[in-house]
């Protein structure tokens, strides 16, 4: 690991890289990535804040639970894999190639790790909120409906003693861009039709089936007799005696004026849980110096250059639900992609910096903090240089001085800091002369 001594003449061209990876989050994404990395010889530490591994997917009865258990069993056997539960990251210092992460587990322990790469694979939160719904016993959230379906033996479904003969699923009132809800609903709708012989209505704005087997699930649901309705304005939901009613216009009629209002009456209105970024997302982003999407609150911008596992910082990757709530197939893809990118980065054992790297002339730095704030890659920090004091008065002894420093291995060579520095103290070493006009063909 190369440490800059503050001598800008010392041209650091490459840094050594350990084969160590830190994974934050012991859910599907974190464990899947850990498995691939460990199988490829990486030393992996998994840090999970809860007391148990598994994350959000344990709510869903599926083959996933069995596969999760076998993944955990495999990881526990590998010597190079360390699993820490009930543990959280407190601080990240340093840059790519020299990360220093301090963790707290339980009340007192603080461990320090020095991974070469970090994978953030946390989760999201769900809230069982039903704004605008009538207070009544028939509002059921998808996770609870899942439990109901799994625990009901026989061929009839009851809720609070009353038989359930019709269920309405209401999608797209919230949770924009979440495909997971569609996956859950299509499966549950089929089970309700085929096993419990219920009438099933699915109301949605757009059915989000662009995930593996999504179209197939939809076709099966249609063939089983599930009825799908599209809506534009939010449907009116009301009590109808002991049952619930939903009113929507009949959008199959083209002319607005000729549309009649349909009323669908059911025993259950099934709603997705409201998805929200985890409550520690802000702290996580600040600790790791990565960006947060302002509009939604999840980690990383909705910038196409960063899909799907890159963050704005070299050496820090992201996969899974903490980037956006998603189903298992998407999470699996992201975990595999992240593991591959980490392997590609770390396997060679070294990283070549550049070609263009920003460099601060510490004699001119005014410590205005503009560049650390502006650097999109969090590659700049204020550090101590054992060089001449910028406020040196002729005749006085030079001493140690603080100035901004760009970590060459973390620098992407974009030049934003170079152009912004009010003291013109930063130059872009390795850039081609800017005033050189480009030859025309």
């Amino acid at each position, binding site marked *: 690991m190369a440490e800059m001594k503050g001598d800008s003449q010392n041209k650091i061209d490459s840094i050594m890289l350990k084969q160590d990876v830190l994974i934050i989050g012991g859910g599907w994404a974190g464990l899947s990535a850990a498995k691939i990395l460990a199988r490829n010889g990486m030393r992996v530490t998994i840090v999970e804040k809860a007391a148990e591994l598994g994350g959000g997917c344990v709510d869903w009865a599926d083959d996933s639970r069995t596969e999760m258990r076998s993944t955990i069993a495999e990881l526990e056997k590998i010597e190079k894999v360390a699993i820490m539960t009930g543990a959280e990251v407190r601080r990240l210092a340093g840059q790519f190639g020299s990360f220093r992460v301090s963790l707290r587990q339980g009340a007192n322990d603080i461990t320090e790790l020095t991974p070469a790469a970090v994978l953030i694979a946390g989760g999201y939160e769900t809230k069982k909120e039903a704004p605008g719904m009538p207070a009544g016993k028939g509002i059921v959230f998808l996770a609870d409906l899942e439990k109901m379906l799994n625990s009901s033996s026989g061929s009839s479904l009851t809720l609070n003693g009353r038989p359930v003969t019709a269920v309405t699923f209401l999608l797209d009132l919230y949770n924009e861009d979440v495909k997971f809800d569609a996956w859950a609903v299509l499966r549950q709708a089929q089970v309700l039709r085929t096993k419990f012989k219920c009438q099933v209505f699915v109301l949605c704005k757009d059915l989000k089936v662009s995930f593996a087997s999504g179209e197939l699930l939809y076709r099966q649901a249609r063939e089983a007799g599930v009825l799908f309705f599209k809506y534009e304005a939010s449907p009116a939901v009301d009590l109808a005696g002991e049952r619930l009613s939903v009113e929507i216009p009949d959008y199959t009629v083209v002319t607005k004026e000729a549309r009649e209002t349909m009323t669908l009456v059911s025993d259950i209105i099934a709603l997705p849980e409201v998805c929200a970024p985890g409550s520690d997302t802000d702290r996580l982003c600040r600790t790791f110096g990565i960006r947060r999407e302002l509009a939604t609150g999840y980690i990383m911008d909705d910038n196409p250059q960063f899909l799907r596992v890159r963050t704005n910082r070299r050496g820090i990757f992201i996969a899974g639900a903490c980037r956006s709530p998603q189903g298992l197939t998407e999470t699996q893809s992201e975990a595999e992609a992240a593991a591959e990118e980490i392997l590609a980065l770390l396997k060679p054992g070294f990283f070549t910096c550049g070609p263009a790297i920003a460099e601060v002339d510490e004699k001119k730095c005014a410590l205005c903090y503009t560049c650390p704030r502006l650097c999109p890659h969090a590659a700049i920090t204020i550090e101590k240089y054992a060089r001449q004091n910028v406020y040196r008065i002729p005749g006085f002894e030079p001493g140690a001085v603080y100035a901004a420093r760009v970590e060459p291995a973390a620098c992407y060579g974009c030049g934003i800091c170079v152009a912004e520095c009010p*003291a013109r103290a930063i130059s872009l070493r390795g850039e081609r002369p800017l005033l050189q006009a480009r030859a025309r063909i």
Partner: protein
Amino acid sequence: MIKAEQKPIEEILGYLEPYGKIILSGCGACVTVCHSGGEKEVALLAESLKMARNKDAKPLEIVEITPARQCEPEFAAELGDLVEGAEAILSLSCGVGVQTLARTYGAMAVLPGVNVVFMGETVMHGQWEERCQACGNCILEKTGGVCPIARCAKQLLNGPCGGSSRGKCEIKRETDCAWQMIFDRLKTLGQLHKLTEIIPAKNWGTESRDMGPRRMVREDLKV
């Protein structure tokens, strides 16, 4: 730190009318930090001035320099070699620097290029707010770290005026009422009893600048 804003360029061009060659001197300290007079702004201003004068066919030659500060005589001396042939100095430093240069180069006009606005804090990148007015007798211990001289529009010393409403100032609605902030801070600190200590009326003459420019002397430091 001192915060300053560049003067409108029309005003600066007015100052520079009689001259054909000037030194444009930036400053590597406060005005660099608030992006109004460091090396970057010096380059920018030089280009703008040259362009304006090109249009009027009265070209202006500008020699650029940005010493670390201008307010010590030794830093001011750094302009020494460049002064020959120049007709005036345009300084982007605070008034202290301009006057140090004026004292050092008595025979040359030294013109200010920025207006010092206040001593202030960085609230967020690109936004600065006034925090200190050099009143000469700091009372921040009594006011929970919020200054009523700098942050109360009326510079009241013993509580808010009747115009304080929902934590905002009646003089400028966007401004937070300083005494509301003082109250909140003292409450957090468990020091509300300090509000019962009357802060006497300020003696602007002896403590502050109302008797002219102040002087600070350390006999023990004199060489």
